[in-house]
């Protein structure tokens, strides 16, 4: 659906993404993890067409992302970035309706109302529909921004830390929405910081470190104590969840000083 083929990104002399290849498959939730500054958001930006690649290519549905007209790309992939401020006091419904903009003048315009209503309901922001976006809390804004991306109804969805501002309930909600989208034949690429969340929900996990892809595969294979400890430069413990068996990842916590 969307793929990085040997992508490198250079910003001001620094190599932020170094020869990364990965592909998001149909029906898949692919989670991108890695320490701060590993290049996760930059890679997502390259796939979204925001960041110019220094080498390789980002490919969307068989063509380079830059070769699509903006509106054609917008009918194929939706993107949620980390910062989502809105300059003027639009109400929540208007913000979510903006997600329908790529479909203006097409047959899909008939779906507008349903798409907006179900996006509002799915993200649990229906009751906020008439509130002005700038008056919402950070977590509420994050869910409205996600609703906007869902309303766009694209096969591919790229999410950059969609759970950062959310409580436990809504973190799980976001990931279950990602799964539902993948189950309907879509594909979702998610950047996450919470390793247990990643291990529990990902079909595959990709681990980035200093711009390089160091591992990619099912959580059980990738989320090992050795690999994650090395990447995060902090001892990490991994053990199976007593009921589900999914890997639970926790940093080694001690009150004494680290070795």
């Amino acid at each position, binding site marked *: 659906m969307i793929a990085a083929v040997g992508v490198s990104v250079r910003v001001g002399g620094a190599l932020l993404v170094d020869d990364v290849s990965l592909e998001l498959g149909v029906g898949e939730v692919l989670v991108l993890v890695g320490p701060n500054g590993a290049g996760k958001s930059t890679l997502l930006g390259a796939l979204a067409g925001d960041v110019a690649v220094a080498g390789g290519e980002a490919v969307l549905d068989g063509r380079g992302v830059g070769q699509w007209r903006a509106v054609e790309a917008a009918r194929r992939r*939706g993107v949620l970035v980390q910062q989502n401020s809105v300059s003027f006091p639009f109400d929540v419904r208007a913000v979510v309706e903006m997600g329908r903009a790529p479909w203006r003048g097409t047959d899909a315009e008939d779906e507008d109302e349903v798409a907006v209503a179900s996006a509002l309901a799915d993200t649990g922001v229906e009751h906020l529909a008439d509130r002005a976006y700038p008056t919402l809390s950070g977590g509420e804004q994050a869910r409205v921004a996600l609703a906007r991306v869902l309303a766009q109804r694209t096969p591919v969805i790229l999410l950059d830390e969609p759970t950062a501002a959310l409580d436990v309930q809504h973190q799980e909600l976001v990931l279950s929405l990602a799964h539902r989208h993948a189950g309907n034949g879509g594909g979702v690429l998610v950047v996450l910081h919470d390793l247990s969340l990643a291990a529990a929900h990902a079909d595959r996990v990709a681990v980035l470190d200093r711009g390089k892809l160091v591992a990619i595969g099912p959580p059980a294979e990738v989320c090992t104590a050795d690999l994650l400890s090395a990447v995060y430069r902090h001892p990490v413990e991994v053990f199976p969840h007593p009921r589900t068996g999914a890997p639970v990842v926790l940093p080694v916590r001690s009150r004494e000083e680290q070795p």
Partner: protein
Amino acid sequence: MLFAVLVTALVVVSVVSAGAGQYGLPVSDVVRALLDKPLADPFAEGALWAVRFPRVVMSLLVGAVLGVCGALMQGSFGNPLAEPGVVGVSSGAAVGACLSIVFGWTFLGAFTVPGLAFAAGLVTTFSVYALSRSSGRTGTVSMILTGVAVNAVAGAVVALLMFIGDQAAREQIVFWQLGSVAGARWSYVWVALPLVAITALASLVVARRLDLLSLGDRQARHLGVDVERLRLVVICAVAIGVSAAVSYAGIISFVGLVVPHLVRMVVGPGHRVLVPASLLGGAVLLAAADLLARTAVRYADLPIGMVTALIGGPFFFWLLRRNRTKAGGWA
């Protein structure tokens, strides 16, 4: 509903304004003249058609273009502080006007000052645009900062020209900068009208897409907006329209900033309504300001730019205070 109110206000203000002045005429006479019926007093008819009507029409055109360009600028930069002057239109036009005043150029006849002001306004705006581009994209902040730098240079050039010029030139520059629609003639109106029409038309075409820019450039691009092209269209429209307005009327501050805010407080931030409503609102506001400028002090024609700023400033501040909580503040 809002449009009905605005159109009514526009007609009322125009008719009253055409009748008012040192040589006062009843509203019924103005209406008769407009309906092409002869008036009893031929002098009154002459005054109406040669002086009052072109002046009223000019104030409507200038106000409309300033209002709509304010909405365009605020929308395309996603910034409630933006106004046409940000990209250097006004200060550039001032340089052009001052050049022709100080050096006494008259190669375009009566059109020399407005002609040069128009050209310099265009050139300045496009230099701001070109200078702020890097790797094919314009950042909002880099463009506004470039505008600040260019505005400073233009201000310095105007100061230098005033220093070089003689007493009479200085006086003319000062009055040009204060803004006025006093000298309006039909010939000026016919030149300005098509330029204003281009701006108005372009603004209506892009209005809907401006909503998406309030999400941010990246987000708008993700939703299929060709952000660079949209911004270029907006800047061309603003440059053409405001250069035309400024070149005839001088610098009229505040209309471009205030009108979109006033409209937004009534109808909300959606640009599909905001843009045309700002067009009408600007026209009404400036026609009213001109009426006030001509009639507030007997036998004096106050600079309209002074009137708009003097009344607009405190009024705007009061509105902001009142609406700050309701609008959720300005991010």
